[in-house]
């Protein structure tokens, strides 16, 4: 048997022992183990390893270990929940304030106080309101533009003068210096 078959056999030993292999595959594994001393040693050691690991099943933390497990769980949940609460929630917890009761009992006085404070601020701190001239209406603008239109037109005409430099008039047949040189 080659190394590959040994490896396959070793991997299938547990399934073979648990009866999870088909009949033909199980027969192949058993035949290989019967013929291969290396795999036989491996199988023997593996069996002993399983027995050794059985010791782990009997490791227990002691008879009273779990007595306070649930209490500790509640405590940890309370701590985790407390850490998630906002500053205001923690403040209300600190002073034993029920937010709904507080809201019901103090809503109207708080509203009145806020109103009074607003009045006081408006009267004493804020400066007196200065009346600003209102912008002219659209019709007034229109009237103004219509009235001043001829004067603006005259001013524009007065500003229009003949330009200092003018381009030569472009003739229908442009002058050709090459043709002229031929005549000379």
């Amino acid at each position, binding site marked *: 048997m080659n190394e590959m078959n040994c490896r396959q056999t070793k991997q299938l030993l547990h399934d073979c022992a648990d009866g999870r292999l088909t009949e033909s595959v199980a027969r192949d594994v058993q035949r290989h183990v019967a013929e291969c001393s290396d795999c036989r040693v491996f199988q023997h050691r593996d069996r*002993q390893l399983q*027995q*050794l*690991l059985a*010791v782990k099943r*009997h490791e227990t*933390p002691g008879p009273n270990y779990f007595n306070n*497990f*649930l209490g500790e769980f509640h405590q*940890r949940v309370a701590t985790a929940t407390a850490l998630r609460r906002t500053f205001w929630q923690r403040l209300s917890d600190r002073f034993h304030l029920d937010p709904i009761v507080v809201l019901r009992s103090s809503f109207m006085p708080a509203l009145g106080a806020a109103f009074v404070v607003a009045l006081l601020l408006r009267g004493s701190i804020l400066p007196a309101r200065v009346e600003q001239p209102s912008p002219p209406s659209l019709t007034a603008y229109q009237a103004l533009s219509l009235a001043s239109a001829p004067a603006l037109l005259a001013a524009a005409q007065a500003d229009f003068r003949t330009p200092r430099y003018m381009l030569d008039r472009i003739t229908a047949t442009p002058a050709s210096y090459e043709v002229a040189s031929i005549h000379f």
Partner: protein
Amino acid sequence: MTALRKLAGKFKFHADSLADARQAEHVVDMAEATDETLVARVQDGDVDAFDYLVERYKERLYATVYHMTGNHADANDLVQDAFIKAFTSICSFKRESSFYTWIYRIAVNRTLNHLKRGKNRQQFSLDDIDSHIQSDPDFVELMSHVTPRREVSLNELQDKLNAALQKLSEHHRAVVVMHDVQGLTHADIGKALHCSEGTVRSRLFYARQQLQGLLADYL
């Protein structure tokens, strides 16, 4: 007047005993309720129902985590954390798997993360083998072999075994604990560790090979 007081007292006694009886009935109902019922109750706002789930699974989860970490303090912290995580996110639990599979996965993932961070305290408790081990056929057969094991004490054997397990990588240790110690199937281990059955088999094979080498003197 005295007669009236006696009558009122009798009624109160009956009311109290009726309330106690109802309470006891409620406790029995909750203790016998299925996981699905308890989870549904917690999701509906009855947070006390979660206590029954904690009571039901604390020891099984603890055993798994303890075998992976190797010490009680870490195991306790990690199992508590797993239950808190499950409690705070139970509304997102869609009941597509069983509650145990879900919380088992949480606990194992937290333990693996803990081990990867290298925060393991590495202290073994060697005096906590229960008395049932003497009647375990595997253990009896193990100790009956004519090998150096005969001379070693149970504590020494446990010490060597734990030391060998701690030398495995986290994932190899996890599959050995789940399969060879706790008896989970390859499929269940694959679900818990988010890997295929083939990966589980392969890890198991390499872990056993490594353990055979590490414990060669005792096999």
